[in-house]
């Protein structure tokens, strides 16, 4: 009796859990693991940035404006990556700036994914006319180049980081709707959905309990990809003066402020952009890994 039980327990142990299986495939992709590590650092800086930064990001050291990084003549250890035209420490601004980009990514993906999944589920289950209406509305949003629509929305709402986030979320939403609807359409014809319906599951239960968990894989990949799109778009809006406003140390806004100094002080331009690039690259690497690990079609045997 005892033996049988423990044998069964061992068997349960042997069958890898979904998370374990996912990690197994994810780990195989070296780029994805590097991406994840960089992202972890980024998230850490976003959460604890103000306590790590050597200086206050808005403190102006008037005696040390446009000081080069430490390894260049004229640089000093106090300002490791140099200072900007107002004498603010670049490293501190970059560290504290991580939280704005992180925040943008989290909020935009949360809004866009929640709204998009809900509408996609409704469109997938609704009668044809409602489905057609929802999808046409998404077509309309997709007809505008994303950055242009976001710019115009911000012009209507007024330039601020929050409005930029709302605008970007609206622009990214249709991708989630399309993706969710497509997977719902293919899932709902399967036998397990029919049997759930026969047993008497209501629409609500069918949508959220039966079908949704089986549609999540592509949505998670999309979430990773739109996290990086959101960071890029928010930085672009900040660069155009329509996102976060100075003196916020948002990376795109920092680039905009530094623009006129590009030929005199390479560091004020180089480092904020590098921060954006490295973060976005890390998230995209992670997204590729997620796709390989979650999409059974692409799994290598």
């Amino acid at each position, binding site marked *: 009796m005892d033996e049988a039980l423990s044998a069964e327990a061992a068997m349960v142990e042997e069958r890898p859990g979904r998370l374990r299986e996912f990690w197994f495939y994810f780990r195989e992709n070296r780029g994805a693991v590097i991406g994840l590590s960089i992202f972890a650092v980024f998230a850490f800086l976003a959460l604890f940035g103000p306590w790590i930064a050597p200086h206050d990001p808005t403190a102006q050291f008037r005696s040390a404006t446009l000081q080069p990084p430490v390894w260049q003549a004229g640089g000093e250890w106090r300002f490791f990556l140099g200072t900007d035209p107002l004498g603010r420490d670049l490293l501190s601004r970059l560290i504290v700036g991580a939280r704005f980009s992180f925040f943008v990514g989290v909020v935009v993906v949360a809004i866009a994914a929640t709204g998009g999944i809900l509408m996609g589920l409704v469109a997938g289950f609704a009668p044809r006319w409602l489905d057609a209406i929802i999808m046409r509305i998404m077509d*309309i949003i997709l007809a505008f*180049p994303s950055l242009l629509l976001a710019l115009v929305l911000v012009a209507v709402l007024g330039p601020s980081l929050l409005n930029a986030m709302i605008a970007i979320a609206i622009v990214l939403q249709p991708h989630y709707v399309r993706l969710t609807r497509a997977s719902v359409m293919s899932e709902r014809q399967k036998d397990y959905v029919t049997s759930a319906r026969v047993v008497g599951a209501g629409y609500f239960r069918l949508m959220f309990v039966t079908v949704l968990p089986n549609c999540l894989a592509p949505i998670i990949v999309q979430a990773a990809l739109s996290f990086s799109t959101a960071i890029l778009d928010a*930085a672009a809006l900040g660069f*155009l003066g329509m996102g976060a406003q100075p003196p916020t140390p948002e990376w795109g806004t920092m680039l905009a402020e530094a623009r006129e100094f*590009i030929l005199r002080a390479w560091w004020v331009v180089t480092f904020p952009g590098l921060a954006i690039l490295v973060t976005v690259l890390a998230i995209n690497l992670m997204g590729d890994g997620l796709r390989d690990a979650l999409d059974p079609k692409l799994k290598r045997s």
Partner: protein
Amino acid sequence: MLNYILARILTFVPTFIGVTLISFGFIRALPGDPIVVMAGERGLTEERYAELSAQYGFDQPIWIQFWDYLTGVLRGDLGQSFVTKRPVWDEFFALFPATLELSICAMIFAVVLGLPAGVIAAVNRGKFFDRALMSTALVGYSMPIFWWALLLIIVFSGILQWTPVSGRIDLLYFFPDPTGFMLIDSLASGQSGAFLSAVRHLLLPTIVLGTIPLAVIARQTRSAMLEVLGEDYIRTARAKGLAPGRINGIHALRNALIPVITVIGLSVGTLLAGAILTETIFSWPGIGKWMVDSIFRRDYPVVQGGLLLIAVMVMLVNLTVDMLYGVINPKIRKR
């Protein structure tokens, strides 16, 4: 086939009306009284207000206003700019060639480099070239292009002094522009150095605008090639003893091109979004810069009209791509 085309055109109509509705609603959604906004004048008297209200049709019910706007749009009437007092339609098409020229050059740049990169990566799957090319492509794909532009300016305009920083051509040259394409017009003008100047102005914006499409095309070509290379007919070709170059270059690439062409067609929206940033940084007098400037000048009729024209353009291109795709690939039509 005809049914497919008709059905596809039918979905175009509601989307078009919706896009018009958004650009129509834009001025009304702005904070403040739309009439004050449209008039662009300070201290409106009561009579002037009523006069303007009647002139813009604001005293009509909202659906009549929309109908007037829609029929106006179909006749090519998009209102006129506050700043220049010229019709928005004329301004758009005066600036459009500059954007088109830049976009075409960027796309050529992307295709000429992206296709071979994708093919080389696919053929060397898992080896050094594949890894190097695909890592580079991912960096390009993740690039904040406004920063990329600044970096290129630092290196090529600042340190090396090879390229100018802004505009389409040196101010020294002046010639008529029958086509609006600077490269063609400068050649036609016959002035020595004009063409070279135009090319040097075009160089950096082309690279900046082409970077993301380049990365996308390289990645897409690679995955399409990999799929095709696994097919039976490729094995047959190999078994027949065809040279690898012929197999990869002709048999495989031809079929891999179909998804790639779709990607190229569908990246028109991406190009226009990129043009907004690229044109702003390089002071390129195209519609991207025109839109950004108008947003900052609060020149709302321009923003409204430009938004609509750009969206309609993107929609028309997507419609064309869809239909071409349906012609090439019968499976699509059956849905």
